[in-house]
């Protein structure tokens, strides 16, 4: 049971990292570290920023 739970959380961790879902958490963490008194952007605001970035720098997909 414990190994199953461990494996599932590893899969979840990997999927979140791979898709960039975990980026927000990392961003908040570093934001709090560098600007301890500034409010952290909400998830919604952060995602808008993130897609705008993606807009400007298209990533090629290969054949």
């Amino acid at each position, binding site marked *: 049971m414990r190994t199953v739970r461990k494996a599932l959380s590893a899969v979840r961790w990997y999927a*979140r990292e791979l898709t960039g879902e*975990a980026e927000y*958490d990392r961003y908040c963490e570093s934001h709090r570290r560098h600007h301890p008194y500034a409010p952290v952007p909400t998830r919604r605001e952060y995602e808008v920023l993130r897609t705008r970035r993606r*807009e400007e720098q298209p990533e*090629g*997909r290969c*054949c």
Partner: protein
Amino acid sequence: MPASAMPESGSKAPEKSRMSPKSVAIWTTVALAGALGWAVLALSRGEEISAVWLVVAALGSYAIAYRFYSRFLARRVLQVDDTRATPAERLEDGVDYHPTDKRVLFGHHFAAIAGAGPLVGPVLAAQMGYLPGTIWIVAGVIFAGAVQDMIVLFLSMRRDGKSLGQMARDEIGKVGGAAALIGVFAIMIILLAVLAMVVVNALAESAWGTFSVTMTIPIALFMGFYMRYLRPGRVVETSLIGVALLLLAILGGGWIQDSSLAEYFVWSPETLVFCLVGYGFVASVLPVWMLLAPRDYLSTFMKVGTIALMAVGVVIAAPNLKAESVTDFASTGAGPVFAGSLFPFLFITIACGALSGFHALVSSGTTPKLIQKESQVRMIGYGSMLTESFVAVMALIAACVLEPGLFYAMNSPAALLGPTVDTASEAVKNLGFTITPDQLTAAAKAVEEETLVGRSGGAPTLAVGMSEIFAGVFGGAGMKAFWYHFAIMFEALFILTTVDAGTRVGRFMLQDMLGNVWKPIGRVTWKPGIWITSALVVGAWGYFLYAGVTDPLGGIKQLFPLFGIANQLLAAVALAVTTTVLIKSGKLRWAWVTGIPLAWDVAVTFTAGWQKIFSDNPAIGFFALRDKYAQAIEDGQLLPGATDMDDMHTIVLNNTVDGVIMAIFLLLVLTVLVNCAVVCVRAVRAAGPLPTTEVPYIESRIDVPEQPAEPLVGARS
């Protein structure tokens, strides 16, 4: 992140390491297993062998190559240094640059390089038997493809993630740089056209396939809105919903096929071309969050899932290979799928999977900006490419488990096969294989398609092979139709993602280039500029797509060689740039590492290109074929393949265009090569290493243990 960690981890100068007896024993076993696989492949003559031997041979070789050759490359040739800070560390901004866990980055990089290429090429190359294809896929990746990916990744990493084009300009000069830039753009257009053609050939006249692939657009839009407005940023959850909807769409396609709605989804190839072109334009102009990003997530999940499923399927089902190990077409060059003999045409047909120039663009794009430690280029660059090569081996297996008769009935050009199963059966018999009309009808019925005759392009063949393998493991013969359409959907999804992203990348490149001439068009926020450049890019690949789809002689047969040569020429550019940089930085004695693959690749591409332009044989040479049909038009004759004079004129026009494009590609790459050679000679004559644009050493302050025990920040939120 332990920012205060002591900066003294990682390898120092390469010291002689002694292997423990245990690891000697393990690696001897791996080597023996691989050798046994190859021995079975080499020694079997005439009898059917199990596909498992191919897998064993490939995996054994990959393991040895990764353990020894990639380590040699990292330690001796590149001299990776884990005490040196990577751009991800030095320039960390949490946006473009941030150190990423190597397992995650491996996934990223693999998802970016793997697509439909390694699935299509090996299927077509099965025309020459499974042995030549397998040898090239495995040897090519070990000594050329993975080496290129790894070294380009390394060099770009040492230059803060510069693109291949920029590196060419900085390290070689303006002329070579410009030629490389134009070459990359032109080659991308052909790539998009050929990939789109694979989709058209897979979906034409198939209600099931067309319905389920069309449904991916509303699914992606739904995901986009869900992620933006309902649950911002919940990518994993959204992707799981998307995958579930996708599977429903595949099931729904079967239902549509049997209902009265079917006729609305049976589209002609020409209609599909216009839909794809329209779709490509819209996808390039819409905000990424709506269509492109969600589709990309969907495609990544499907990619990883299906490839894992395929590996399990091949090993459990352990199908026998029905194809011959080496067919006569390898030496005669008279094969119906693609013309020309083994050298050079096998090596341009199997491009991705063995050596793919396009990977150099990915390896010098986002990945180098995310690497934590220099030594990780080995796993990310070399390892990802080995994985892609394994995908190619599985695709080859899927094609070779089919009866050869069925393979040729599906992949020969329509002009050869004729309109019915009877004519197709006869045509296959003339090629020296047998399949009865009843068998052809039964094979189509098993996957619930109208017909399988003349379904060239690789995707349908792979889908039939995959359905054969999967049905043997999951669900039996009754599931064959589902698995067939699953495979078609999965390939179409890949390709449409490449078309979306490629059109967008092409648009940015074009804006960049045209911006030098007329400023406003270079602005990425000026709407008319976006529309004009998008339309130009879409129009360019759309033209080749339309020409290919309506080509009376079969677009795949005509354009696939152009695609393969283009891809391998791009690899030549990448290998030439890397060789030059190695020589410039005083590593002449290791220049053979990329120099030998470069010499081989130049020999292959220039021989193939030369034959495509100058061969007198109309089956191979574009201009020879053009002259033959032009002569016939003057004489007022109709030649085989053409049903009227318009067809004759189309053939003449297409071959002229293809021949001219081929010549332009060769000239562009020749410019780069000559420029590189000049720089290399200068570097060899110079007393010391020439200046390069490598960023100077800065000591790393992060410490990354071999395998992080704790997940990165954010895993437990």
